[in-house]
């Protein structure tokens, strides 16, 4: 029983970390979806880009992980803004599928550009993954420690930003109803650009966090979690920022906790993503507006 409880604490820790990454990246994706009506298939590649920005700063230039993560946030935010201004904004108004296909193309270009520049080999940050600290009830790797610190700082800051600041409120307003927001005097264009900065920055942060927690990664890092990010967006209700914050945490926790051996032996770890898919289909059947969305005509 003792061991089982230790395992539970460990899984909760892992779940909170995975959940925070999904929550933060999901907030970006859902706001972009709500404001620009784009299912951004390149979102995973923004994570990859962030992870490699962090890698360059960390192993190439010898910066510590915090500075590297900050650099990744800024770099990825600028990348997302550049893609918006150079490609997506001039081409907008072509409908959901056309815009999404354009982001598919951008994603393919970004991923393969990273492959060409950085090579397909598996990389890791210059952190000593073996220096595990024992917290008595759970053990924590340095990568997880960084992720926990980011979680504790960024997730509440994000909630405050969305709830208290004028810009955060404007973003939620435009995502909810663009025309109404414009009529209320919100500069929709400006908010539209800022939301890409925010989504890009959060994706860059998520990418470095994933890379630090996983320990080893390759240029497929972001693409492999894209469908989990999309699942987070739907679980939270498309366009709902708070929904995505909570849904990401719930999804991360549920996926980790499902493997707990105290739970009738637990699910095999490799079936975690399948659980996310089952949750997605089940939710769409019974609560299509998302966990926290209001029921309205979809």
């Amino acid at each position: 029983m003792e061991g089982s409880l230790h395992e539970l604490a460990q899984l909760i820790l892992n779940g909170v970390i995975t959940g925070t990454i999904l929550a933060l990246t999901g907030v970006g994706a859902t706001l972009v979806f709500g404001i620009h009506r784009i299912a951004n298939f390149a979102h995973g590649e923004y994570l990859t880009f962030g992870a490699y920005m962090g890698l360059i700063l960390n192993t190439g230039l010898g910066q510590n992980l915090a500075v590297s993560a900050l650099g990744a946030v800024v770099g990825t935010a600028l990348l997302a803004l550049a893609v918006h201004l150079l490609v997506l904004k001039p081409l907008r108004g072509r409908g959901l599928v056309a815009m999404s296909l354009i982001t598919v193309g951008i994603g393919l270009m970004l991923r393969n550009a990273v492959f060409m520049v950085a090579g397909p080999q598996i990389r890791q940050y210059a952190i000593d993954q073996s220096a595990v600290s024992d917290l008595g009830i759970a053990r924590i790797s340095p990568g997880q420690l960084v992720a926990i610190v980011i979680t504790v700082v960024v997730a509440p800051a994000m909630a405050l930003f969305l709830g208290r600041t004028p810009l955060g409120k404007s973003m939620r307003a435009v995502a909810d109803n663009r025309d109404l927001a414009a009529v209320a005097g919100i500069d929709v264009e400006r908010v539209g650009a800022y939301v890409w900065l925010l989504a890009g920055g959060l994706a860059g942060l998520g990418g470095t966090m994933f890379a630090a927690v996983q320990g080893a990664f390759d240029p497929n890092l972001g693409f492999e979690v894209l469908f989990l990010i999309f699942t987070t967006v739907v679980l939270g209700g498309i366009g709902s920022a708070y929904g995505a914050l909570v849904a990401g945490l719930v999804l991360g926790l549920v996926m980790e906790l499902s493997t707990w051996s105290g739970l009738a032996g637990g699910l095999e770890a490799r079936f975690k993503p399948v659980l996310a898919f089952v949750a997605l289909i089940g939710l769409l059947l019974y609560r299509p507006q998302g966990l926290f969305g209001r029921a309205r005509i979809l």
Partner: protein
Amino acid sequence: MDFLNPAFWTFVAVVAGIYAILSLGLYVQFSLAGLPNFGHVAFMAVAAYTMAILVVRYAVPMPLAAGAGIVGAVLLALILGIPTLRLRADYLAIATVAGGEIIRYLAMNLPDLTGGPIGSIGLLGPGQIAMYNGDWLAFLDRIGANLSTLVGVRVSRDAVAAILVWLLAGLLVLVLWRCERSPWGRVLKGIREDEAAVTAVGKNVFAFKLQALMLGAVLAAVAGLLLAWQIGVFSPEDYQPTLTFYAYLILILGGMNRLLAIPVGAIAFSLLYSGTRLLNFFPLSLIDSGSRAFLRLFLVGFLLVLLMAVRPQGMLGNRRELLLER
């Protein structure tokens, strides 16, 4: 790679025909009914795996196993369609993305069922080589022998496959041409343009959408079976989401809402795609072949963005009936 090697180009022709059939499925779903399916490749994967498992493990005859593969793909269409088709199009888009990834993930992680990462060759477990396409190759050889005596020249196996695949593609184009002009096809187009209006005249929009999704799944399954037979060995890596986007590219290359343009799009795409294999002259020869594979996918992405930007109606597109505003 030799430019003038006929065997290479025959193989390209076969694959182009298979891509054409795959894209026809997407045509029914997306161009006719307006359903954004981003997980088309999953239908191919389900059909191929079902067929291969039945043939290898249970010695089921090829036609029966192929039928079961198609049924499998239709079941997947039902699983994805029933929860999402009553909702806004975004939901189907996301459910199909997730569905496609889950199928590939399962194929990778259920080695006892699917052979795992090494693919169909491992279906009988380690140490044994599993082959599922013996009947298909024998079938091709029989036709090839008959054709050879008929025309007096030896006809290669791939040439027979190319002829068969393109005959089937042509037949399917004709069938869909008829379907599109039937009352059924007009309802689908109506749903694409204005769902509320179609509901108002008393049509069951959900049922029509589900039918379109299922028909598209059947076509993708046929393409999946043909591709599996043709390549002989497949693994989960052969069902990357990029394959779905190739099908979209073919749809756009030919012309978004032109049925007859799909074969043209498939040929154009295959020429472009295999053409980039020949990009081994200076200065590109300085890049090693591994990086060139990435360069090729990079160019596919670039082409997709460029086409959507400058010519969303495609080469032979129909501007009037261009419907991207969804």
